[in-house]
């Protein structure tokens, strides 16, 4: 008899998928909305419970789905890391939807609204499946599902140029899917397995024997490049600013904060559970990751400085933050991976918060142009205050989450003796400050700001409480980062 909590991952995925099937059948739009949000909350709570059940003994388990045993059947694998990531994803998803609710009501056609929530369910289920699965083909199928869901939430707002952004996203994404599928096909050809554990064992043997070195390299390379594109690493990032600037704010938050992160988690799983990090290291891929990461850190920031559109600026900043995460993975040390995973959480919370706050600011000032937002500080002091907290966290001011993350990165790069990363970290932090601070300073202290009417456009509490919760989480995790770090560290022990 299995302990009851072994069922949580599967039921999480199935429950959300069932909701996706049900939601177009429910007539009342309000009911769909409440049910979806409730579902995210319940799923998050269960994942959190699972995390704390598994935490004391750092337990991790394999749950076989269906009637066939491991080499043929499908499996889910769950440990502290996976459960906690699922919980973070659920709560960020919930708060992004709640925070972007007002924009959703404005931006979506009535007919589409229901399908939007359906697609959110599908997206969330596929992200959970990517986190939990122990089978690379299942991962591929859910990557595709995730991609289609992401297209839909980008194009759901039928104004602006969302269709064009979707086309751009579509082309890049489909190319990446093709690469990932080819990589899996090559991997299956040389090993005959799809299960991660069996793949790991046979790749280890193969690598030791020296046979099939080239196909292995091709497969790892294709997988890496495919996931680069899907997670918007710098040279392949152009879809992210386009898609998240024109989409509705909840979609932008989810796209930038969560969807790209799902693929990064898949990449981590592929490296540590399938190819084996030693193999990846000796194939030279980790060095590549560091180089691309550094380019992204600087390049993303530079392109953010040029933006005059507030949402585009935030999206370009995402590109630079994704560079940080890749540098952490590329270091291939426990500390580096810890920094990367910590930054995934930091970025998911902060970026989602920034996008929904920006959405609120934009919908109340009816412009996205930063130059026209000079009077925003006094007009909506609370909203702007929260935006400032997020920006400070992204730049890395102490007491906030972003600082701990930068601290982790610095520690990891000193540990691995790589000076270039520290320099890039400093330069990128300065650049972060360069593009976040001018709009904030102009927003609070410019001439228009002094003349603007105080509290004129401040959104009521009912509208901004999700923003406030996310901001509070950023501060809280910043203050109690020790606990969070040790939790992630425990979770990551399963990977080494």
């Amino acid at each position, binding site marked *: 008899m299995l302990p009851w909590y072994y069922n949580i991952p599967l039921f999480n995925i199935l429950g959300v998928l069932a909701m996706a099937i049900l939601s177009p059948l429910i007539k009342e739009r309000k009911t769909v909305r409440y049910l979806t949000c409730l579902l995210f909350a319940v799923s998050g709570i269960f994942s959190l419970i699972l995390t704390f059940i598994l935490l004391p003994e750092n337990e991790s388990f394999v749950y076989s789905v269906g009637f066939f045993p491991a080499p*043929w059947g499908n499996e889910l694998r769950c440990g502290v890391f996976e459960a906690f990531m699922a919980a973070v994803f659920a709560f960020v998803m919930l708060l992004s939807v709640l925070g972007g609710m007002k924009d959703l009501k404005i931006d979506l056609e009535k007919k589409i609204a229901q399908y939007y929530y359906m697609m959110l369910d599908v997206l969330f289920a596929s992200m959970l499946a990517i986190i939990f699965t122990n089978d690379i*083909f299942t991962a591929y*199928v859910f990557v*595709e*599902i995730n*991609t*289609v869901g992401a*297209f839909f939430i980008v*194009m759901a707002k039928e104004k602006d*140029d969302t*269709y*064009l952004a*979707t*086309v751009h996203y*579509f*082309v890049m994404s*489909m*190319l990446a*899917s*093709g690469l990932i*599928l*080819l990589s899996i*096909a090559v991997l*299956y*050809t040389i090993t005959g397995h*799809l299960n991660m554990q069996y793949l790991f064992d046979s790749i280890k043997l193969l690598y030791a024997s020296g046979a099939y070195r080239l196909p292995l390299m091709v497969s790892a390379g294709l997988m890496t490049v495919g996931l680069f594109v899907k997670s918007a690493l710098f040279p392949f990032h152009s879809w992210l600013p386009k898609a998240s600037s024109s989409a509705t704010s909840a979609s932008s938050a989810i796209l930038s904060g969560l969807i790209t992160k799902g693929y990064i988690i898949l990449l981590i799983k592929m490296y540590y559970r399938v190819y084996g990090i030693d193999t990846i290291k000796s194939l030279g891929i980790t060095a590549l990751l560091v180089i691309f990461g550094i380019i992204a850190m600087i390049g993303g920031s530079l392109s953010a400085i040029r933006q005059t559109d507030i949402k585009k600026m935030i999206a370009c900043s995402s590109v630079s933050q994704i560079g940080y995460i890749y540098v952490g993975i590329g270091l291939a040390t426990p500390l580096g991976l810890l920094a990367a995973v910590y930054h995934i959480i930091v970025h998911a919370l902060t970026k989602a918060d920034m996008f929904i706050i920006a959405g609120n600011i934009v919908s109340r000032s009816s412009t996205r142009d930063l130059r026209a937002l000079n009077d925003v500080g006094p007009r909506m002091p609370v909203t702007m205050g929260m935006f400032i907290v997020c920006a400070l966290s992204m730049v890395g001011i102490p007491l906030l989450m972003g600082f701990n993350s930068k601290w982790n990165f610095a520690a990891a790069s000193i540990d691995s003796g790589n000076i270039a990363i520290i320099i890039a970290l400093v330069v990128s932090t300065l650049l972060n400050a360069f593009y976040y601070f001018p709009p904030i300073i102009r927003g609070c202290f410019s001439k228009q700001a002094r003349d603007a009417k105080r509290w004129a456009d401040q959104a009521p509490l009912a509208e901004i409480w999700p923003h406030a919760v996310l901001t509070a989480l950023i501060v809280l995790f910043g203050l109690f980062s020790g606990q969070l770090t040790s939790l992630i560290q425990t979770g990551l022990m399963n990977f080494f």
Partner: protein
Amino acid sequence: MLLLSRNMIKKIIGMNILDSAVYLFLIVQGYVQGGVEPIIRDGITDASYYVNPVPSALVLTGIVVSVSVTAFALALTQRLYKKYGTVNIDEMTYIARNEKNGGQK
């Protein structure tokens, strides 16, 4: 074709060719010389008489995925055509940019 062609329909065809190529590659890997389809016949249970069923199952799943993605892409193209009156991406971008600039002035 997926990347370079500026025509949406050609892009979709390119994507389908890419997918089909990968599926054929997978199917070939599963072929056993002289094997028949993996349904037990005449009580023979020795695996070497049958082709490997796993790649076929994978390809079947893959086909479902690519069919749905193609359907999505075609629907998107239809929407784009209704909005911009063309299936060429460059022209669409041009029209969209003009609209934006016109709106601002």
